[in-house]
């Protein structure tokens, strides 16, 4: 038994355990049961307006191959990404500044406290009037949706940094810059990624609603357009696509977060 063999055996054991793990199969069983019950309900003659899983399986490939389906993904993703990116930069910069300076915090915080409870969609009328294009309007709304959760989590993250780390850093002779880059920022990172994960979920919600209200393309518009043209399969496909897009975005955020904070295991 060489050590190498041991390692391989261990890795294999780990994989096979994962495959045998109940969690994986339970998840699959849940999804299969869901579609099965849905199908049975249709067979029993209930919920006739909604297409059955079998009809969906037949209709979706055709729907996907229609021109413009994948373009809708691109259009929505672009809006989500643009709004999210601007919100992340603004939220991090303003959050860090507020976290470092008590004075600025006292000045800015009350203003934000009033603006935060306004739902992003309540900004729609004003945004339509203000921004020259509907594209900018939609990006602006996703920005609003993502900005506050990011800002608040950056602030909370900086506040939560254990005071002993700051004190230790002081005794170790930290400059202002190092205190900031090597202590406060890494200390706040886990909380920042919590904020980013929440924010990316919200941007999808907002972009879909914004597209339904004022878009001419994108997954939200596609879903709404399917309703206007009485395409049941289109509606369900739109919803599924949105669900998958949101799930994939959260998953990417989680992976990025894990890579950026390797000490958290």
């Amino acid at each position, binding site marked *: 038994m060489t050590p190498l063999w041991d390692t391989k055996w261990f890795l294999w054991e780990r994989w096979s355990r994962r495959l045998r793990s109940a969690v994986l199969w339970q998840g699959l069983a849940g999804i299969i049961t869901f579609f099965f019950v849905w199908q049975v309900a249709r067979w029993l003659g209930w919920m006739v307006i909604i297409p059955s899983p079998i009809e969906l399986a037949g209709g979706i490939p055709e729907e996907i191959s229609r021109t413009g389906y994948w373009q809708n993904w691109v259009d929505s993703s672009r809006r989500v990404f643009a709004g999210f990116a601007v919100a992340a930069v603004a939220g991090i910069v303003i959050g860090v500044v507020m976290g470092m300076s008590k004075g600025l915090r006292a000045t800015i915080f009350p203003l934000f406290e009033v603006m935060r409870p306004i739902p992003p969609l309540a900004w729609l009328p004003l945004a339509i009037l203000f921004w020259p294009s509907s594209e900018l309007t939609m990006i602006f709304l996703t920005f609003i949706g993502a900005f506050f959760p990011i800002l608040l989590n950056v602030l909370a993250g900086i506040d939560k940094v*254990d005071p*002993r*780390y700051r*004190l*230790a*850093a*002081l*005794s*170790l*002779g*930290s*400059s202002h810059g*190092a205190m900031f880059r*090597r*202590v406060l920022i*890494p*200390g706040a*990172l886990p909380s920042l990624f919590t904020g980013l994960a929440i924010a990316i979920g919200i941007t999808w919600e907002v972009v879909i609603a914004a597209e339904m209200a004022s878009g001419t393309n994108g997954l939200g518009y596609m879903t709404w357009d399917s309703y206007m043209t009485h395409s049941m399969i289109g509606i369900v496909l739109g919803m599924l696509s949105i669900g998958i897009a949101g799930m994939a975005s959260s998953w990417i955020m989680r992976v990025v977060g894990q890579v950026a*904070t*390797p*000490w*958290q*295991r």
Partner: protein
Amino acid sequence: MMTQRSTKSYGHCVVDAVGKVYGATEDEAEIVLKDCTFDVPAGSLTVLLGPSGCGKSTLVNLIAGYDKPTLGRITLDGAPVSAPGVDRIVVFQETALFPWMTLLDNVAYGPIQTGRPRREAEQEASELLRAVGLAGFQDRYPSQISGGMQRRAEVARALITRPKLMLMDEPFRGLDHMSRGLMQEYYLKLFDEHRTTTLFVTSEIDEAIFLADRLVILSYKPTVVQTVIDVPLPRPRNFQMLTSSTYGQIKDQALGLLYDEALKAFDPGKAAA
């Protein structure tokens, strides 16, 4: 060994009639330290021994410059202490290694901040980590090593800055009995090599006597210095000394004092009466 010890002529810390009151208003005011006077001779390992909650960490914070005394003054080699500085370093009660840095980065952080070239700092950090028995672990994060290893890494992070005064606040608290004994031996070996003036805080009497050149025994709140006892056991120390008669006498004396104070800690009403 003894000659080496007398050559260290810095790190002499004087705590002079220091008092500390917490709380802003008169109602909230809590007198923690009433009148504490003692000194930490240069090159010595002075142990601060007192019941839990008597204000040992408070004293450490004051000497480190993290907080200011309400009364009295603290000097290090004659200069008043007013803010944190690189001449004093604290090893905290629970680990304060930066969780986001590897052990190597943690230990090399101090010297890099004070202007040493990175390569040189990492070289020395690596050697120090080997010296505390963490040779293969320098790329691990603190959360990936055991509690005892974290304590050693933190001692290395403190030693590398060559402070005038090291403040160790119950560094081995929370370790099991076995690791604690090993850590004490390990730490003494390091101390014999470096002879950095040290104030070591503990509430464990055996640990105190085993390590100390002199013992500063505190009362319970409001805290005063009860007694200072010199521990004339030779260095290097070993566990056989724990059964010597000198050790027994000192322990009897200290236990008598501590026992009364520990009782007060459980019954504060009586202490006030």
